[in-house]
């Protein structure tokens, strides 16, 4: 089973890297950018009997290591074996 874990900074946590990227985009002439927040994406492959079990394992992975929940949120999107998007996920 394949899954994508997205870790982002919580609202209100200062993101100096995002700010620097935002400034660079503006100086490159990319118009209309009003805010950039930097995050992390983990593409995970795992053996699990079903999606619920995979979600439980990935939640543990996020809580124990992938995210620092003091400053970060995480989102788990599970994709089925054929690599198609799981219901509710926009990732394919």
């Amino acid at each position, binding site marked *: 089973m394949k899954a994508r874990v997205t870790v982002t900074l919580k609202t209100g946590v*200062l993101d100096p890297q995002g700010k620097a990227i935002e400034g660079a985009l503006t100086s490159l002439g990319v118009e209309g950018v009003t805010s950039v927040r930097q995050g992390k994406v983990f593409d995970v492959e795992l053996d699990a009997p079903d999606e619920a079990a995979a979600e439980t394992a990935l939640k543990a992975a996020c809580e124990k290591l992938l995210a620092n929940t003091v400053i970060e949120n995480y989102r788990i999107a599970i994709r089925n074996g054929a690599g198609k998007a799981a219901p509710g996920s926009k990732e394919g």
Partner: protein
Amino acid sequence: MRAAVLLFPGSNRDGDVARALRRSGAEVSTAWHADTALPEGTDLAVLPGGFSYGDYLRCGAIAARAPIMDAVRAHAARGGLVLGICNGFQILCESGLLPGVLMRNANLRFICHRQSVRVERADTDFTRGYEKGQAIDICVAHGEGNYTADRETLARLEGEGLVAFRYSDGEGRVTEDANRNGSINSIAGIYSPKLNVLGLMPHPENFVDEIVGGTDGKAMFDAMVASRAA
């Protein structure tokens, strides 16, 4: 005093801190990250500076989950001393032994310079050699030293007197200019509630010998050794 310096892949200040401890009279051994116990009779566990696991994921995140950290947690729970310097402070925060988090410096630069910090209290096993309010001359070298914590945690740290050091000028004035990494309330180091765990970004081990231009770090090692003399 028996000190154990923890070694993670990517630690690089272990030799300096071991030398500083020996100069102050400690017996020093090394504990490997994959070990499950600290050496017999350890009084002080030291998490040295460096770049454990190449700072992958988040600084200190992977080291904080190493097998030896369970032994460090048990040691701290028994009242044993724990000192985390720079990357060691990051590891202590990631492991939950200290609250809060060290984020990328606000100016996005790696900073490496002499720095004064104000000693917030001089009644702990780490700081008895200083005076309260004294500005000590020390060094910083880090890219992620911008301390932050949620409002409740910060209120607790301040309310219970758990801030150990603040970035200051040479006279001990805590100014915006002196706070080069953007840390909230200019925090350079914090204690655990029982004052036996200290994490700090500055490197006291840099300044224990006149030959390198400063000795203000030595009193910290002397105090730790004196606290567990015998």
